[in-house]
């Protein structure tokens, strides 16, 4: 029983985050004040949204390096729509963002499913293509704050029960996807496909189609985040969220998602994102140059993947009776 608890990567990570917070609190108690923690959560919300999508993709033995570019393209498109038609209701903008993101995700998914192209190649390619398209449609220009309508900028900041809508969206996504992953056929199919594609075929699951849905979900979340990002920072240009895909993958790896597929959870993705969010927000507080952030998240990825690998190391087949835990 103890073994199973310790094997739970989520518990371990939660402990690490708590320890980190405690360490910071010893010198900067203000950091762990509820209002500041809420701020950290809100700041991490986009990472949480993308990490959930990425987690599902990695679960099926794929990887989506195009999420940040998808976010940027969707963000630019909705920003330009807002400039062209300032009166368009935010509900419509939101739907456009999700649909466009979904569509871009489907492109990745189709290339992986129908043409059987390795996901890393597909998404490295679409990553550059999406960025290039932003340049083409925007002509390299910025959409600035003063060009955006007030309503367009207001949504993520609007406070509801003490938390901004951005935070609520992240919370809703965590809850919805926790349910989807645990209690729907599609959710379980993601685990099956990543755990053993061969066996999944035998149980009647179409591996390629399941991967397609993973990319679609990842795209939809990236599209949603695209609007939220552009609206929150009130600016859109070619390079927004540049390199953010690496943070997203990092959040997943830190959250215990196995790159080999089949292992991962929404809770893990959430905690992995929060871990990075806490570090990012704590650096200026503890007076470390923000230039340290890149190296720290890189180290976190390496340490996390090493720890995960140790836990999952192939121990050999269980043949000796003494090695079995049947009942």
């Amino acid at each position, binding site marked *: 029983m103890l073994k199973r608890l310790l094997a739970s990567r989520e518990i371990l990570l939660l402990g690490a985050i708590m320890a980190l917070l405690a360490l910071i609190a010893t010198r900067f108690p203000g950091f762990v004040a509820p209002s500041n923690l809420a701020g950290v959560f809100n700041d991490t919300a986009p990472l949480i949204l993308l990490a959930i999508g990425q987690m599902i993709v990695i679960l099926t033995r794929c990887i989506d390096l195009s999420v940040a570019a998808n976010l940027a393209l969707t963000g630019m498109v909705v920003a330009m729509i807002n400039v062209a038609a300032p009166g368009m209701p935010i509900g419509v903008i939101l739907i456009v963002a999700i649909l466009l993101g979904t569509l871009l995700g489907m492109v990745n998914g189709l290339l992986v499913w129908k043409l059987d192209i390795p996901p890393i190649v597909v998404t490295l390619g679409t990553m550059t293509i999406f960025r290039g398209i932003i340049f083409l449609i925007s002509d390299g220009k910025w959409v600035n704050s003063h060009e955006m309508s007030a309503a367009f900028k207001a949504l993520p900041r609007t406070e509801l029960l003490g938390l901004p809508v951005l935070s609520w969206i992240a919370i809703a996504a965590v809850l919805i996807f926790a349910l989807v992953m645990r209690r729907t056929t599609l959710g379980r199919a993601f685990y*099956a496909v990543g755990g053993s594609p061969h066996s999944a075929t035998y149980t009647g699951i179409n591996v390629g189609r399941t991967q397609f849905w993973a990319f679609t979900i990842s795209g939809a979340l990236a599209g949603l985040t695209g609007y939220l990002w552009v609206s929150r920072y009130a600016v859109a240009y070619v390079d927004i969220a540049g390199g953010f895909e690496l943070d997203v993958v990092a959040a997943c790896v830190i959250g215990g998602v196995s790159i080999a597929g089949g292992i991962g959870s929404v809770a893990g993705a959430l905690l992995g994102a929060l871990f990075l969010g806490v570090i990012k927000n704590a650096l200026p507080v503890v007076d470390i140059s923000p230039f340290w952030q890149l190296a720290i998240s890189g180290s976190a990825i390496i340490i996390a993947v090493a720890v995960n690998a140790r836990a999952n190391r192939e121990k050999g087949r269980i*043949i*000796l009776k003494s090695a079995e835990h049947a009942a």
Partner: protein
Amino acid sequence: MLMHAETAAHAARAAAPDPAPILALAKVTKEFPGVKALSDVDLRLYPGQVTALIGENGAGKSTVVKTLTGIYQPDGGEILVDGAPRRFATAQDAAAAGITAIHQETVLFDELSVAENIFLGHAPRGRFGLIDWAEMERCAEEILVGIGAQIDPKVRLRDLGIANRHLVAIARALSIDARVVIMDEPTAALSHKEIEELYELVESLKAKGKAILFISHKFDEIFRIADRFTVFRDGQLVGDGRMADVTEADLVKMMVGRDVSQIFPNRERRIGEEVLQVVGYDHPTEFADIGFTLRRGEILGFYGLVGAGRSEFMQALFGITKTSKGITKIDGRLSAIRSPADAIENGIVYVPEDRGRQGAITDLPIFQNVTLPSLKRTSKNGFLRLAEEFRLTREYTTRLDLRAASLDTNVGSLSGGNQQKVVIAKWLATQPKVIILDEPTKGIDIGSKAAVHEFMAELAAQGLAVIMVSSEIPEILGMSDRVIVMREGRIAAELAGEDLTPETLVRHAAGI
């Protein structure tokens, strides 16, 4: 068909009209590049009856199972359900038609719980169509208890041993309310007690009117529970009928197309001095306390149930598994073997069971496969010498009578038997002292099988020490000078001479 047994009972049974088959194959053909796996085969499964599907490895049994369960689609002929033609595009279509299978390779998910492994794809749903985990675990428990398995449905599958994994696979097949149950070697890894429970289960399924297709290599088993038989050879139907009308000898004759006694070469036994000594091999989960000696010119058989730890031990001996402990002495000298490269340098080579993944590099040409462990000899200062490589390849493939279009042909395009010859040639080219052959004739045709046996005898006669892992009793009996039986990761017995009988082998392997 054979109609010699004319007892009253048989006459009475023969007189009863056959019920209509639930499931049938009519003139089904399935081709793969270069191989006709099934040609025009017929198969009928009747309600309340067990039909045994019999044939050698490579006869097409697995292809039939995969065709019936929607993994493969036939290239010709029809699948008939209640007499009506049906097409199964996926495994789900076959399940919907009431067909379920316990596959030979237990197709299960290590990271998921036992309950989910049983119910994946057809889990009980609660409100809003969401999966009801509590109900799923309850049902799983019920099915597991029903087959006498003591397994906690919440345990992750990776924590189970091979016999329990098989039981989970059986539970999965039973969790689908099927009319047709296919059992592909269900008892291969089970102990005596578990097998008895499986038989009871089969009886109860029969009583419920289910049609059962039972695939097995064990004749005692087939004669005990089957009502009918169908025999395949080289992808063709060679006979079918009632079990009551045939003898074991009849079935074997149909299976191999000639008398069995001819298969094994008579060899002159010239056993020399001791070459290999193994002491105290241990592994945390796979095997414990393995020790034996081996002499030049000797063929030492390793027998046991599937999953008894034989291959795992051989891979440790060959330096693949690093977590094991133990001492290896070659020609009396202590040898530290930490990798296959070390093993090869010390004169131990291993022909693995899994040819496609471990034995050969199927996308590379024959000559590159053969010279891979011998590149040091064929090259000069680290630079390749192709002429030398072709020469070495030709030397050893000729000895094995390899059939191929050219030595530059990819190994993957060869038949199973010829692939095996390439793997053996690769190892002989290293001029080893000890050769380990793991299920050397599994999945290869009769002709190649005899060639491999003959060659094995020739190697022993030349003074090579041979270890042969095999699950086939005739092969073990026909080839070995001495046999070690393994059970659950330990040596259960060492048999030679008069102690070496089919009964003693089975008894020690199953732990009766």
